[in-house]
């Protein structure tokens, strides 16, 4: 059985905790425990409670303390649950993202905010079925934002995030165990590099995390109809410069850009990518699909009507390509 997202992430953290005797994980109720073929991981059992600590329901503590300890050279990972993504927003904005600059380079926060993202789950209602929050962080100066779509990228990006001396937001959406097999050894997926999932020359499709599942299906479907889509997964949202090189190269070839997003439409995830393409390559034909600017309703009928699915992507791609 392939490694799960969580197993892959914990495997990466475990390796880094073995390497760096100070690296510390603070969390709430999501135990750093996972079972898999390669044996169970249990970070509290292995590293003790000081280095793998459950906390009160206080995300401000979890993130703020990781900032404080990372400032004194104890690198730290703050793991917070999905409905609390914005509780530490002020901390990341006014402190993590700014203190290096304000102190002329003296302060450093070698920390990772491991933010669980629920995604568009049915039967929960607005507070527990959100997506797209990563873009609020991607806006903020001094922060890096990564967002893996499969266990392989998840492990490699988590290790990259831990080793980075700058604060990194690591966004974990629930994703299936697809993609390349996850090596047991530590490895790095560099921050700032997009992945080319499939090559094609008729149009460029950009999307990440949960939408990669729908895009993947759509790309197969389009292939059957003779349309070659180049599917790019940014994996990093900030800084975006490296990612844009890959995207611009593709759009230069295809002349058409389709983005698909589980987050909301406005001021949002793929907006920045679309705007940069529009600035750099005038004449590009562009289409953005996204969840509407609305909370997620509980009832599954309403929710699924609002989400972008493979069917929508196929239809939009055909329209872009055929006229």
């Amino acid at each position: 059985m392939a490694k799960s997202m969580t197993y892959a992430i914990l495997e990466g953290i475990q390796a880094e905790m073995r390497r760096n005797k100070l690296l510390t994980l603070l969390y709430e109720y999501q135990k750093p425990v996972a079972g898999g073929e390669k044996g169970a991981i249990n970070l509290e059992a292995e590293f003790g409670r000081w280095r793998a600590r459950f906390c009160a329901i206080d995300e401000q503590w979890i993130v703020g303390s990781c900032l404080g300890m990372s400032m004194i050279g104890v690198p730290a990972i703050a793991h917070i649950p999905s409905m609390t993504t914005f509780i530490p927003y002020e901390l990341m904005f006014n402190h993590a993202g700014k203190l290096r600059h304000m102190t002329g380079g003296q302060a450093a926060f070698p920390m990772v905010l491991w933010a669980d993202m629920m995604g568009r789950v049915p039967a929960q209602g607005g507070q527990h079925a959100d997506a797209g929050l990563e873009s609020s962080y991607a806006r903020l100066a001094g922060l890096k934002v990564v967002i893996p779509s499969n266990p392989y990228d998840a492990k490699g990006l988590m290790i990259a995030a831990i080793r980075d001396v700058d604060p990194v937001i690591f966004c974990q959406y629930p994703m299936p165990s697809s993609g390349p097999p996850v090596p047991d050894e530590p490895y790095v997926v560099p921050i700032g590099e997009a992945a080319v999932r499939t090559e094609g020359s008729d149009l460029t499709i950009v999307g990440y995390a949960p939408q990669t599942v729908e895009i993947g299906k759509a790309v197969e479907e389009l292939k059957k109809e003779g349309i070659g889509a180049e599917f790019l997964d940014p994996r990093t949202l900030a800084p975006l410069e490296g990612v844009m090189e890959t995207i611009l190269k593709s759009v230069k070839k295809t002349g058409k850009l389709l983005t698909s997003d589980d987050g909301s439409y406005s001021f949002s995830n793929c907006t920045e990518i679309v705007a940069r393409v529009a600035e750099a390559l005038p004449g590009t034909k562009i289409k953005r699909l996204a969840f509407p600017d609305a909370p997620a309703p509980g009832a599954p009928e309403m929710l699924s009507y609002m989400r972008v699915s493979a069917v929508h992507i196929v239809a939009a791609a055909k329209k872009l390509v055929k006229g």
Partner: protein
Amino acid sequence: MGPVKEVKRKKAAKPAGEEFTKDFLVGLLRRMMEIRGFEDKVFELLARNVLQGASHVYAGQEAVAVGACAAIDQRDYITSTHRGHGHSLALGADLKLMMAELCGKATGYCKGYGGSLHITDVSLGILGMNGIVGASHLFAAGAAYGIKVKGTDQVAVSFGGDGSIQGNFFSSAANAAAAWKLPWIGIIENNGYQIWVRAADVYGITDLAQRAHGYGIEGRVVDGNDVLAVYNAAKYAVEKARAGNGPTIIECKTYRWYDHYGAGGAKIGVDGAFGLGYRSDRELRDWMAKDPIPRFRRFLVAEKVLTEQRADEIVAEVRQAVEDAAAFAKAQPLPKPEDGLRNVFAEGAVPLHTC
């Protein structure tokens, strides 16, 4: 500030100057039975995978909701939490509309938008169940400020778990309520766990009501499985607040029978409360022995407020009402898909972006 006070149940269960009527006392028992009956049904539907979503079952804590809600009037407000079914039912919410909402139906309390976590009936004074831990306290304290602006003698009561006193919201509520003597009553339902995390492992205090003193608020500790003890403490706090004498924080020590949410591990017909890794079955059995419902029933029978036979009848009536609610919910229509675009703003619908 005095020390944390333990509010003991009065011998004859009658607070000074108040005679309980039979109707009132039997009403308390019936409400607790309704909550238990509803939650047992929810648990069964979860175990059978009929119900989707995260229902946080209230069984075991009935005395808190019923005792506290009996102390307030129709004109007052409450705010509630992820574990909110009991609070709504204690205020007299309709079992049918509750169940319809849990089933995501268009005729449920929130028209299917909310589900278990957000059941709201503003006509009952419920300002919303809120799935974000601690938020209930801040909104109730804010409503209490609004009451001062209106100049009425209403009160606002918030419910929150032992997890709700930390985090972002409680502190803001408590400080302002203390500074300006707002008519706010914060009920802390200390069931010992925050999912699987023990309060004792993450707090430096044992009686959570002690937290109140740091703000200059009176904090009280009561037996949360004794409906009259909760009622008495709440009544005291409500009268104090109505008289302009400010907030009270009441910690109710209690226990939840089932797991944090859902019916994980439970097979149909088999009790899913036992065998949870983070607590001992023995601890659970000790608390089940203090079940607030039979305890209060025995008391009422002993005090001749109720006969065993009448009590059995109530049990049967409640069971029937719950079954009717489940049948009602099942028969209700689903929401229209495009309605998800409504109620974002008061008017209109937001645009769809799937094409």
